[in-house]
């Protein structure tokens, strides 16, 4: 049986208009065979969590370059968890200083992809992690 396609929500939280990275990653994931939904700009954490629920995604990718990541990313994860989406893999990308990364990971962001990350790295990471999550859910 063919493996179910990985579904990804790419979202832009906050007032940040820099969508180049989000779009490039969205396309790369799509070219890698995933189903990608892009939210568009200016999404609140509530809107993102709701979209993740409605779209029944495996992954939420949050792209943020405005510097508001500490205020918006942990909140988004928290709302996802409140909706029972514990299995959803949450990753982030953008301009995020190294020193904030451990704090974000603690808050439930699985990985942070900084500037210069190749799209291949992101594709592989998501493939592996989602496979892992799917396996563990099956076994649970």
């Amino acid at each position, binding site marked *: 049986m063919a493996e179910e396609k990985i579904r990804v929500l790419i979202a832009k939280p*906050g*007032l*940040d*208009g*820099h*969508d*180049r990275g989000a*779009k*490039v990653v*969205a*396309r*790369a994931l*799509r070219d890698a065979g995933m189903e*990608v939904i*892009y939210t*568009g*700009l200016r999404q609140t954490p509530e809107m993102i969590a709701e979209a993740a629920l409605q779209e029944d995604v495996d992954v939420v990718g949050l792209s943020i370059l*405005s*510097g*508001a*990541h*500490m*205020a*918006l990313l942990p909140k988004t994860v928290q709302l996802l968890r409140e909706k029972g989406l514990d299995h959803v893999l949450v990753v982030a990308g953008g*301009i995020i*200083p*190294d020193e904030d990364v451990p704090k974000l990971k603690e808050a439930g962001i699985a990985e942070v992809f*900084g*500037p*210069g990350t*190749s*799209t*291949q790295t992101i594709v592989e990471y998501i493939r592996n992690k989602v496979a892992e999550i799917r396996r563990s859910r099956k076994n649970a």
Partner: protein
Amino acid sequence: MFDKEALEKIKERQEQWEETTLQQWLARLPERDELFRNLSDMPIARLYTPADIPDFDYLEELGFPGEYPFTRGIHATMYRGRLWTMRMFSGYGSAEETNERFKYLLKHGETGLSVAFDTPTLYGYDTDDPMAEGEFGKCGVAVSSLADMEILFDGIPLDKVTTSMTINAPAAILWAMYLVVAEKRGIPWTKIGGTIQNDILKEYIAQKEFVFPPKPSMRLIVDTFEFGAKYVPKWNTISISGYHIREAGATAVQELAFTLYDGFEYVKAGIERGLDVDEFAPRLSFFFNAHNDFFEEIAKFRAARRIWAREMRNRFGAKDPRSWWLRFHTQTAGCTLTAQQPENNIVRVAIQALAAVLGGTQSLHTNSMDEALALPSELAVRIALRTQQIIAHETGVVNTIDPLGGSYYVEYLTRKMEEAAYEYFRKIDAMGGMIAAIEKGFPQKEIADAAYRYQKEIDEKKRIIVGVNEYVSDEPITIPIHKIDPEGERRHRERLARVRRERDNERVRQCLERLRNAAQDERENLMPYILDCVRAYATLGEMMKALREVFGEYREPIII
């Protein structure tokens, strides 16, 4: 310029060269397997000779600096007369902190100011709006009312220093705040100079800081043209910007074509209002990106000047030579900065800045090495400014005008850029203009395609980015990282609360009401109403709310 016989001889000799000398070299030493293409994906030949520009006409295509078609520069003396304005884009945290940074930069030889506003300000929200959560002072300085603007420019001589403000949807409001600061200090508006970006079309295309739909947005812009022409004659009421289009991933050709086409739309809108083109066109300015491909960038700047002059004269019938001038600011390409080995960015910025100078820029911002990591530290911004000073005072490139003019390659490329831009113009014309093209998602899609292609080339190592996909190093980053003091937000919020408490709230209510009514009447110029609101200390968020109620908000087509 080249006579036929001479050209034939050159061609003949080139063929000989290819068959003999070149063949021998290639047999021994084949060319590297690399993309010999520029960033616009144009193939670049091994060598350029007069045969590549056989019908080159010096007087027609280049002429003389300060004369039509201005390919060599808009001023007759260029940098021999006056250097470009060294204008560093800066802003963070509260008005106090940014004011301090302005003074620091001026002390170190900066010659013009350029304000970066934070995202809530850019979208027209006060700092305490729920939409502003987490964004205070991150991407620039927060300005919620006149009180912040007064502090931002405290101790800065507004009649001596020109100020550029990167502000778009709420441009009329921030400009009004600046005008009222001058007014309160007794400086006549005729004496102040500067620029508001005020370019909404590129917001829809690339930067995405739009608020209102196109029609009312264009109206507000023309209101500033009209008001500026009458009362603030030294102010550039728009900076038609390719910078952000390029940062979103466009090629140099796309940047050139979309920016100039946006320019045509603004000119059309001004004429449709009934303004005389020569009344407002001299105050239109431009803003371009200086990216990595050195000669491509120089060709882009030269082509831009030539196209603009021609179109202003022929398409729009402008008669004042100042209307034909394409005056522009340049910023080195932020998207080329790497988070890896950030010191390398100093070198990238220097080369990009040199391209801008060789391309004849009027004003220049050089990025700081740390900008892929955070907002610039004092050290980083000082080095960036010094880079300009070194180009200006040590390299000698300022001694003669357009020193690359006449280079077979540069002239060939200038022509190619121009031709490619006209191809885009024809496509956009056929769609019914830029607003129609934006609503179709055309420029957005072109840019997204180019951005993706560029990333793939890097991922596949067809393009080498030093320190990213080649020459990588694991050494930790040691440069200092600028941090924003949370105290700034507390101080700002306190001031905002005080403004709302202490002002005459009845007067504010009336001013906002009049603004709302005027917005409903298309024949009204909104500037006087906005100025009254500002004088009464109505906040940015309050004014924008009034306008949002009348104009509505733009929803963009989602294009991946």
